[in-house]
């Protein structure tokens, strides 16, 4: 137990130190916010362009960067999505219903065939 607590305390201390250094580093960067000695974060992924480029067949929206979006309640969107919800749920129940019906028919047919086979064997 003591060991665990010590380990947690050491980890917490490390984190505090790292962030303290971060704050210090931020304060000492140039007014533009760019520390000339610091490598760019964006550079941590080397260039992936190559012969395999764009073999996805789609428009390539997934470039690893999410667009900035502003969250706002759009009541009018319900007019678009509620019909999708109704159609979707109805569609699922219809497809499920068809599958259930077919399975029931299959089960019944197989039982009848099995019974007939058994009757023949019994005879």
């Amino acid at each position, binding site marked *: 137990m003591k060991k665990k607590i010590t380990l947690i305390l050491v980890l917490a201390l490390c984190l505090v130190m*790292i962030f303290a250094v*971060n704050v210090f*580093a*931020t304060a000492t*960067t140039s007014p533009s916010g760019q*520390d000339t*000695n*610091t*490598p*760019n*974060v*964006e550079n*941590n*992924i*080397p260039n*992936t362009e*190559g012969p*395999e480029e764009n*073999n*996805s*067949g*789609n*428009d390539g*929206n*997934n470039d*690893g*960067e*999410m*667009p900035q*979006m*502003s969250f*706002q*309640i*759009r*009541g009018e*969107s*319900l007019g*678009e*999505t*509620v019909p*999708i*919800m109704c159609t*979707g*749920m109805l*569609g*699922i*129940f*219809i*497809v*499920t219903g*068809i*599958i*259930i019906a*077919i*399975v*029931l028919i*299959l*089960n019944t047919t*197989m039982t009848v065939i*099995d019974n007939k086979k058994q009757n023949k064997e019994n005879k």
Partner: protein
Amino acid sequence: MNMNFGILADGIKALFTAEYAPMMIMWIIGGTLIFLAIKFEMEPTLLLPMGFGAILVNLPFSGAASTIQHLFSIGIEGHELFPLILFIGIGAMIDFEPLLTNPKLMLFGAAAQFGIFFTLCLSALVGFNLNDAASIAIIGAADGPTSIFVAQQLNSNYLSAIMVAAYSYMALVPLVQPPIIKLCTTKKERQIKMTYKGKKVTKLTKILFPIIVTIIVGLVAPTALALIGFLMFGNLIRECGVLNSLSETAQKVLANLVTIFLGITIASQMTASAFLKVETLVIIGLGLVAFIFDTFAGVMLAKFMNLFSKEKINPMIGAAGISAFPMSARVVHKMGLKEDSSNFLLMHSIGVNVSGQIASVIAGGLLLTIVQSMI
């Protein structure tokens, strides 16, 4: 030599700058995923590679990032190969017998997809585009491959967050579902005993089932045919009885191999610059909403059916209608045993769970078809 020291010094120095703080946050996230996988055995096959991958791609000047990105471009971005191949393995693992003996269990699988459509409305309401809202909503399918497939097909901008949320929630099913089930049911309802009538299902039925489901779903939602087709192909290999070695390979070697690559490939999208956004938190929150409403709808349908049926259904089995196979079924079974040690719900919940697997693919296909026709 000097140059090497220079690079080392740059790397160490970089760690102590504010610019790299997001990377360190990603290490903590990666570490947490690894911790959850090892300590609590939460979906370790995926969370561990994802956690390690998150650390791997968030190191300054990471040379591994390009390799993993390449895996991503051929395995997921290309033609959703990894999720589809994984579906062959999953199909080979699934035994549809409990479902075929009691096909009405499929209704719970259908009902438990409500969370997807509810979340679609909610996501659009808070400002996401229709294609992004649909991609976020599909987290509620509780099925990683389906989530990746739909989000990729709809060209979502939030693929990384969606993938991480989908797999994380699958792992968190034992934590997410029980409180919701308890909230929706009374102790008396949770104690309802269900007897399992193990009817004999013929081999021909088991062989015809995957073929019929593929044809029906293919006709209704052709865009999702690859998903259901690969799932049912795996199941056909299992049930045909003449491809036992292929079936075993698909269940074990193939599924494990693809899972290793899938986990680490997903991590390629977990770079600090792409992941540490408010949108990620919102997406994770919306994913939780989807799971909650999936569970709620499944339980509520069971309660509704109890109003009319003579043989009472334990409403908890409705919650297994979310796809997360087989965790959800196990959770329901364990909850049943907790309420009454002689109440074995496993076969019923497994039946509902496999129906959820099919229903989630149908839901994904329908969502794709409808949304693609609108955008």
